[in-house]
């Protein structure tokens, strides 16, 4: 492999990894807050992509400008899912984990059906935009602008999330709720409100990823599945609930996958990623940065 090819594969892997991290962090956040695995996470991504596409088709404004609208929409969507579905799933006295999994699994199928009804099962894409299809070459290494934009957004989102968690009252409420759900009620924090905001935030983060992905990826009702699988592995590898873990694990998964596709038949490129996860949790049962 030439040095140029090496750096190309590395750069592509890092850029994709930042995106994986951004897709996964919402899942991790929600999990850390309330121990719920959202099986409709891929569908959240899909909804965000359709929201971007739909707004683009109606308003005709570039997806980059639509991004705030999309994340606002996703924030409301996420909070609504908590208030309308997850809140009830959490009331289960026995095996609430499984009830949450299947309630959100049902929701995932429902969302797929609704998107097929609204948008038809056709494959959509945004053919022309400011960034779409543009690429810059640095010393022969090509960096596609949509992915570079996605990487920047991802880094900014993680920085913002860090500030939010450490510097704001909301962040402290999140942290407190996650530490001890019973005690927070005593100090006047409305648990339901914090959870709803947490779901909104998680959905907004995946909405951010969706608004980037819509620029360079195709969109259809089943598009979320492959990304969701990566997101689960990223979250578990980084450690459930760890924001920084999601970032690190996303980058690792992106790079490993990128090199694996060169080193072995690309159809099996996910195997090293999965083996890596297994290897890590066999040594550290709570992932890279997780708390048990």
């Amino acid at each position: 492999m030439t040095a140029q090819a090496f750096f190309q594969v590395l750069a592509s892997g890092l850029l994709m990894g930042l995106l994986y991290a951004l897709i996964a962090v919402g899942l991790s956040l929600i999990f850390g807050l309330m121990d719920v695995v959202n099986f409709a996470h891929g569908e959240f991504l899909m909804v965000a992509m359709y929201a971007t596409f739909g707004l683009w088709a109606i308003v005709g404004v570039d997806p980059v400008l639509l991004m705030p609208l999309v994340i606002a929409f996703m924030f409301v969507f996420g909070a609504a899912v908590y208030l309308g579905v997850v809140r009830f799933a959490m009331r289960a006295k026995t095996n609430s984990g499984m009830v949450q999994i299947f309630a959100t699994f049902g929701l995932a199928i429902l969302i797929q059906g609704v998107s097929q009804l609204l948008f038809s099962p056709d494959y959509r894409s945004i053919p022309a935009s400011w960034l779409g299809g543009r690429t810059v070459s640095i010393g022969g290494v090509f960096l596609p602008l949509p992915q570079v934009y996605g990487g920047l957004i991802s880094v900014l989102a993680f920085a913002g999330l860090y500030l939010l968690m450490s510097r704001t009252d909301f962040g402290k409420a999140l942290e407190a709720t996650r530490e001890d759900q019973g005690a927070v009620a005593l100090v006047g924090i409305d648990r339901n409100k914090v959870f709803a905001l947490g779901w909104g935030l998680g959905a907004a983060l995946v909405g951010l990823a969706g608004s980037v992905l819509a620029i360079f990826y195709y969109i259809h009702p089943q598009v979320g599945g492959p990304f969701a699988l990566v997101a689960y592995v990223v979250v578990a590898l980084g450690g459930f609930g760890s924001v920084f873990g999601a970032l690190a694990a996303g980058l690792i998964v992106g790079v490993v996958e990128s090199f694996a596709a060169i080193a072995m038949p690309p159809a099996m490129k996910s195997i090293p990623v999965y083996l890596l996860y297994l290897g890590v949790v066999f040594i550290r049962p709570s992932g890279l940065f997780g708390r048990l």
Partner: protein
Amino acid sequence: MTGFNRRHVLIGTAAATVTARPAFAQAPAEIVIGALYPMSGANAQVGVDARNAFETAVDIVNGMHEVALPGAKNAGLMGLGNAKIKLVYADHQADPQKGRAEAERLITQDKVTAIIGCYHSAVSNTVSVTCEKYGVPFMCADSSSPSLHRRDLKFFFRPAAHDEFFSKGMFDFLDAQKASGTKIETLGLFYEDTIFGADSSNTQRKLAAERGYKIVADIKYRANSPTLTSEVQQLKTADADVVLPSSYTTDAILLIKTMGELGYKPKNIVAQAAGFSEKAVFDAVGDKLDGLISRASFALDMAGKRPSITYVNDKYKARGNRDLNDNTARQFMAMLVLADGIDRAKSTDGEKVRAALAATAIPGDQTIMPWGKVAFGADGQNVDADPVLIQYIGGKWVTIFPKSVAAAPAKWPM
């Protein structure tokens, strides 16, 4: 409730020849045909498009149309007292088990005369076996796996080409280009990890070895992968004289986008149709596909030689808001071939329809396809379903090979 009180207990090897339904003493008013397609899931659009193609075909059979196609001129099926065709659709969700169950439901509950389908080769596999067991003809409209007609099925019919024909057509074209002085030495295979990708690449690998092409990239990728960057990077490094992709819509879009992102402009692409005949791909990345060559069972620009093409395409476009393509043209034509068989059988009896289909002889100019004729071999495969090669130039498909039907010479490199 005739299905409930009839006892058909003795079923064995004789199943294929014994039919459960009595021959109708008089012609029924409606002939029911089952169409089995993916109607939900990743390929649901295929089902929706197929539906429009079938409705167009049934429209032509049921009504009176002045166009050179079998069964067009008179209303309904003449052999059955102008009976009309009615279609029932079922969703197989790309699952062989569900396809099989739906086929059984269509046969036993809806009493279909024949089943047409199924796009996914894996589903066509189990559905055709089920049809065989019930003695109901299966019209394989668009599954192109060569293994399908090699199972000694008596009720299996495929009017269109299979992947070996298609790949052979592609290599004949490459040979012809080479003979006219173009340098073509290296090939890059790029195919998905499905039956389609396996069949297509296996044939291409074999043909390349036989005809002296060197394969410099042999890339099997996971279908619907989040990214294809490293895969395309390898194609770029190999920089073959011709890239041969076997990809469906999603990966076709991603492949072309990624090529652009990595600054890779392939010298030539000769595609195994599939995604590269779908409107969604050209909507997304059409600007990067000028000069793309694809094998095809159908070419719109052959309307000069086959006037029915324009007629049918207009009707189809009114329903589906898109032109006929490789899949929908095959689906349309398969339905006409099936209707023609039932018409000549003068019966809905499975065995009689089978016999009539086996005796099909539709001349090429009575089809919308470039085929020489429709006539089935003992294995149910149309022996004269020659594919053509078409090139996407200035937003239109132009037939470039074989010479006998070509509208223009190939633009090479793309």
